[in-house]
């Protein structure tokens, strides 16, 4: 691998990320799967980095899941996007940040469609006005939440409590990344580093002391694939894709997987359990999976947040070996305590792959 | 005439005796083993035939004509015939006369093998007897005949064109030893008898030698040396005989009664086939006959004589290669002096090749059941064009047009894809696999309710005739059928001007013996030009499915050679009656047009 070649590509595929004053929209599924991620993301950006990021309680889904499952037509979905933008406009912001990669792709798609076909934009404005008497302005910039962290990665690195290194040996942790398909594959210019060699996550990993590892199926889909997953009969196909990715990264013995997409984090994590129960194979050594962190969780760990505050107990694959490696202190007793200090229901422990 | 040595023995006879005993023992063992290889039925048939008077007479005649006089060879090539028969018959007569002499003069020595052979050494002549002189004359006469044969044989190795042969068998080392010892036997006998001619008597051959020898070699020691040399030559020849092509001498004695008993080749290297292989004298007639020689010089090593040799040597790779390459045109068998059924042997060798993948034709049954040919409105004539005809559409089209012209109501058996007749499988040595195809086609034929099956491909035709049991259905090649129609006046053919050279497809001619029907029919349409090598002698076009390994370059060289023979007398048109020959020859021909039989008839109706 020629590092100079990659750097050349990265320098050619940089994108402009505004430094402050953001309007933040959440992801539907991330809030369910890893509810702490978004909360801590806001904490990190506001608290640790001192930036202005605004979240409006009235924002909704972008309609992506319904759209990709062909439950709603594109015009409906674009009208929802218009409404989101109108909330941003009303709140006085113009830098739009979304937490979800699917949404990011959709926003890009909508903006590009409107650019190519102004008549569609006009129609959307009309529909939005008809339905809820709102108006919107096109955001000045549209970025994904991970772009922001990428932009601020060196600031985070400077404030790091724990580096992404092995606390005992000092060696950098080996990290594989998985960038959500809709992040850059649809509009390569909209992703940091483009579609083939995305830099958004590996940039963070390197800035925080880890080693980013290139593996053959790096660009492959995590296996979610919307309607593929939502129809149960097709799930074998979904899990096969994840299986392919895991098989490809296994020989590199990664310490964890970092992703920027809500669905990917969920599926790469949960499918390890399914695969273990179908093939008896685990990818992080006997009984061990490969922990999957969202970029917010990774940033949180680096900045010294408590693992349970970051919601790491919600993971299927046990994160404790990783925490031990990084030297992150944690109290096993508090793992299953809710934010109010009361015990939450404990999961049934699977037989083959460790979850704690 | 009396014995010179009272003991009746001299050590020089030992080489001969060793050789003789070895050969006899070998032949005995070989015979017993051979009998073991035959099935009980075959054995019974063989032994029974030995006692049928008609058969006995036939055996004697055949042995005399084939083994000694080489009548067939005489017919084909008189010079070669003389060469072979002079040695074989002459030697036989010398041995016979030797025995007669022994019997007449020293009956008590008749039991000794060597006595008749070395008679002149052991005897002393006292006075002249007419009986003796006559025998001496006869002995010398046959010796002279043999020597003339050997002189020809030596000359043949220098100048084979004298015998009209382009190629002769390339001999192996052991064959060469056999050959040279055979050549040496008779001159040495001449010299040895010449030494003793003044004592034991002689005639016009030996006495002059005696004078000559005595003029510069007076030492009597030389006498024994010459007899030793003679005996050693004999002994060497006998010792190498079982391992050389000369094994054909004893083998043919068995071959002829076995053939007359009606045995068939059932295994490639056992039983009757083994006798045939051992009977091959390597005369080389098949080498020039083999079309493979047209493909290239080294291809002549694929002729039957070499096949027999490789089998004798038990060289599996080589005999498999030779067997696989053969076009199976059958010409070698047709010209063979010992009627070596090399085609069956080759087919059986191919059958012995192990395959991991068996054929599966179960898919055919649904096609057959779906009613490939409708049983409604049965007609008398069913026409099977065959697989190959799809590549030569002029044939089925012409056949159909002729049938229409003759007002024959007929049906097509394979308007929409043929099931192969199965002959290609048989030729490839997978005959048991062909059964399913035979079954399917038989069912289709019977379900059509036809009485006559016309076939335009000779390969299929031979298959239908030999392997199918089509009760109540007459199988006719289209040449036969149209010949019949013309003869019966149902098909009128206009006489044309063209000079036609007819090519006999191997499977139709040598395979099924149909030579005249196509010629008769064609002569109604044009005038037939004689072809240098035709009918039995016709040269395969090179396209034959019989060959498994021949490359297309080799095939096309054969085709060019075959075409050269056909166009030797400058015909306007080359006509054949086989789709494969048509395509192969047409591809090879750049001046003379090549047409199909039916096509020509069609153009003249």
């Amino acid at each position, binding site marked *: 691998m*020629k590092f100079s*070649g*990659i750097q*050349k590509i990265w320098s050619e595929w940089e994108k402009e990320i505004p430094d402050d004053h953001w309007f933040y929209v959440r992801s539907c599924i991330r809030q369910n799967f890893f509810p702490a991620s978004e909360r801590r993301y806001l904490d990190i950006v506001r608290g640790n980095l001192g930036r202005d990021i605004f979240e409006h309680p009235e924002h909704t889904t972008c309609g992506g899941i319904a759209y990709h499952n062909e439950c709603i037509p594109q015009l409906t979905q674009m009208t929802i996007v218009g409404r989101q933008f109108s909330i941003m406009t009303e709140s006085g912001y113009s830098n739009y940040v979304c937490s979800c990669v699917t949404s990011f792709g959709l926003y890009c798609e909508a903006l590009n469609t409107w650019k190519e076909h102004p008549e569609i934009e006009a129609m959307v404005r009309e529909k939005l006005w008809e339905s809820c008497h709102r108006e919107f302005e096109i955001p000045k910039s549209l970025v994904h939440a991970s772009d922001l962290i990428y932009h601020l990665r060196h600031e985070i690195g400077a404030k790091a409590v724990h580096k992404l290194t092995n606390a005992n040996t000092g060696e950098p942790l080996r990290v594989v990344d998985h960038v959500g398909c809709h992040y850059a594959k649809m509009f390569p210019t909209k992703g940091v580093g*483009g579609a*083939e060699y995305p830099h958004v996550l590996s940039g963070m990993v390197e800035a925080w002391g880890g080693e980013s590892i290139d593996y053959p199926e790096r660009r492959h889909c995590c296996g979610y694939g919307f309607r593929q997953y939502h129809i149960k009969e097709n799930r074998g196909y979904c899990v096969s894709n994840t299986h392919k990715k895991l098989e490809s990264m296994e020989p590199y013995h990664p310490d964890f997987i970092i992703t920027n997409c809500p669905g990917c984090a969920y599926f790469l994590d949960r499918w390890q359990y399914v695969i273990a129960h179908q093939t008896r194979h685990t990818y992080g050594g006997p009984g061990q999976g490969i922990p999957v962190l969202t970029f917010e969780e990774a940033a949180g760990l680096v900045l010294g947040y408590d693992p349970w505050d970051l919601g790491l107990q919600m993971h299927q694959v046990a994160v404790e070996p990783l925490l031990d490696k990084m030297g992150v202190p944690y109290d096993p007793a508090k793992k299953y305590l809710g934010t109010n200090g009361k015990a939450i229901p404990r999961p049934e422990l699977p037989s083959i792959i460790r979850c704690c | 005439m009396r014995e010179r040595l009272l003991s009746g023995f001299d050590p020089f006879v030992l080489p001969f005796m060793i050789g003789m005993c070895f050969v006899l023992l070998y032949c005995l063992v070989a015979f017993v083993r051979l009998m073991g290889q035959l099935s009980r039925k075959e054995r019974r048939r063989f032994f029974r035939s030995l006692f049928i008077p008609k058969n006995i007479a036939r055996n004697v005649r055949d042995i005399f004509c084939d083994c000694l006089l080489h009548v067939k060879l005489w017919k084909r090539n008189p010079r070669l015939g003389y060469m072979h028969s002079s040695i074989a018959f002459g030697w036989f007569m010398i041995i016979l006369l030797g025995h007669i002499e022994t019997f007449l003069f020293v009956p008590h020595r008749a039991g000794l093998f060597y006595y008749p052979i070395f008679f002149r050494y052991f005897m002393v002549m006292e006075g002249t007897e007419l009986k003796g002189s006559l025998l001496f004359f006869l002995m010398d006469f046959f010796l002279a005949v043999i020597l003339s044969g050997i002189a020809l044989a030596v000359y043949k190795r220098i100048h084979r064109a004298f015998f009209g042969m382009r190629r002769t068998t390339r001999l192996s080392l052991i064959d060469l030893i056999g050959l040279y010892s055979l050549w040496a036997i008779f001159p040495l006998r001449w010299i040895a008898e010449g030494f003793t001619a003044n004592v034991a008597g002689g005639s016009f051959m030996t006495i002059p030698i005696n004078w000559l020898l005595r003029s510069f070699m007076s030492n009597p020691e030389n006498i024994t040396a010459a007899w030793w040399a003679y005996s050693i030559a004999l002994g060497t020849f006998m010792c190498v005989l079982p391992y050389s092509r000369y094994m054909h001498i004893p083998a043919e004695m068995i071959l002829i009664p076995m053939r007359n008993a009606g045995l068939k080749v059932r295994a490639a290297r056992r039983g009757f086939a083994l006798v045939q292989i051992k009977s091959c004298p390597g005369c080389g007639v098949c080498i020039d006959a083999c079309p493979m020689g047209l493909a290239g010089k080294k291809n002549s090593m694929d002729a039957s004589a070499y096949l027999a040799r490789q089998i004798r040597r038990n060289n599996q790779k080589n005999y498999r290669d030779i067997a696989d390459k053969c076009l199976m045109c059958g010409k070698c068998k047709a010209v063979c002096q010992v009627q070596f059924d090399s085609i069956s042997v080759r087919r059986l060798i191919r059958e012995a090749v192990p395959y991991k993948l068996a054929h599966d034709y179960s898919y055919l049954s649904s096609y057959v059941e779906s009613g490939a040919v409708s049983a409604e409105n049965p007609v008398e004539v069913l026409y099977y064009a065959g697989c190959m005809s799809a590549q030569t559409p002029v044939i089925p089209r012409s056949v159909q047009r002729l049938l229409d012209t003759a007002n024959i109501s007929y049906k097509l058996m394979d308007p929409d894809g043929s099931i192969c007749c199965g002959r290609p499988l048989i030729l490839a040595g997978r005959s048991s696999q062909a059964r399913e195809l035979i079954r399917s086609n038989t069912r289709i034929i019977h379900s059509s309710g036809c009485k006559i099956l016309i076939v335009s491909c000779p390969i299929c035709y031979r298959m239908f005739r030999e392997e199918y049991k089509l009760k109540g259905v007459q199988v006719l090649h289209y040449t036969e059928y149209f010949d019949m129609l013309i003869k019966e006046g149902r098909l009128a053919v206009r006489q044309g001007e063209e000079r036609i050279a007819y090519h006999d497809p191997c499977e139709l001619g040598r395979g099924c013996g149909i030579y005249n029907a196509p010629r008769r029919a064609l002569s109604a349409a044009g005038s037939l030009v004689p072809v240098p090598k035709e009918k039995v002698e016709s040269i395969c076009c090179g396209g034959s499915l019989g060959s498994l390994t021949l490359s297309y370059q080799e095939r096309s060289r054969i085709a060019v050679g075959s075409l050269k023979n056909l166009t030797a007398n400058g015909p306007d048109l080359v006509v054949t009656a086989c789709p494969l020959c048509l395509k192969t020859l047409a591809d090879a021909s750049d001046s003379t047009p090549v047409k199909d039989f039916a096509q020509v008839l069609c153009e003249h109706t």
Partner: protein
Amino acid sequence: MINKNIVIVGGGPAGLEAARTLRNAGLTPILLEGSDRLGGHLLEWDSLFPSNQKASEVLESLTADLEGIKWFTNSKVEEISRIKDIYLVRTSSGYTFQANAVLLTTGFSLFNATLKQELGYGIYDRVITNADMERYFATGEHPCIHEPKTIGFVHCVGSRDEKICNRACSKVCCATAIKQACHIKEKFPLAQVYCFYMDLRMFGRGWEDMYYNAQTKYGIRFVRGRVCEVSEGMDATLNIKAEDTLLGKPIRMKMDLLVLMSGIRPRKDTEDIASNLHIELGTDGFYSPRDPFIRTNESSNEGIFLAGTCTGPATLPETFSSARSAAARIIEYLESK
């Protein structure tokens, strides 16, 4: 006519051949070459298909006798202006030449394979281009070629690809790929060599024989399908993804060396020269001849002539013919003036 000036822009095969032809006709052409050596792409090539003749030999015979030709290296053309029938050609070396006719033999540039990011040229050590391969053949050295076991040749890189705005075929890559494949197989007889092609366009004389020999003599395996993704494995081997379209299945393979057949693209300065001289460009970015059959050597601007690959992909013999015909056309033109 003797005193008329002809300036030839570009000292590659077409320029050299045209200059020689004009010289042989008694004229004194001026040959301008931007780089420091005459020869153009021939300098970078080791051998030429289908005869495997060394490129250096061809170049040698082209440059053996340059007497009567005024040639200048390091003379990049900066500007060409027209005053009535005379063209003024100003070069980077500071000279200005007067010309009654200008012949453009500016040639082509090889497609920049880094633009096909998914193939990893410039990223992965073992991905090289046809030009790198020629350099390797010429020098026998390449840091990443050590006894490769599996070698892949990817045809049509930068050709027949609308994603990089080139729908056209580059005409010579198929033959080059097969030539190089046979060559590398000769060097590493144990290697398994694959050619990934979209269509095999072996239309030239003797080319089909090359293909036949590649199949039979060299055992090169041909896969009809485009390599569309390359990634690096643990030991720097490459994992490639393609579809064997004849098999109807995607195939995955490990490769020790992947050679990209970069196609023929117009030079970057083609557009500048065209706008400077007001001559037309085709949609493919190459100069357009005045008509595609008879006046193939004339540009849309009088007095400006074209030859060689600046008018589109061409084989070397075609380039030479085009150069000679351009020379003949220029002589006709000058005589008619």
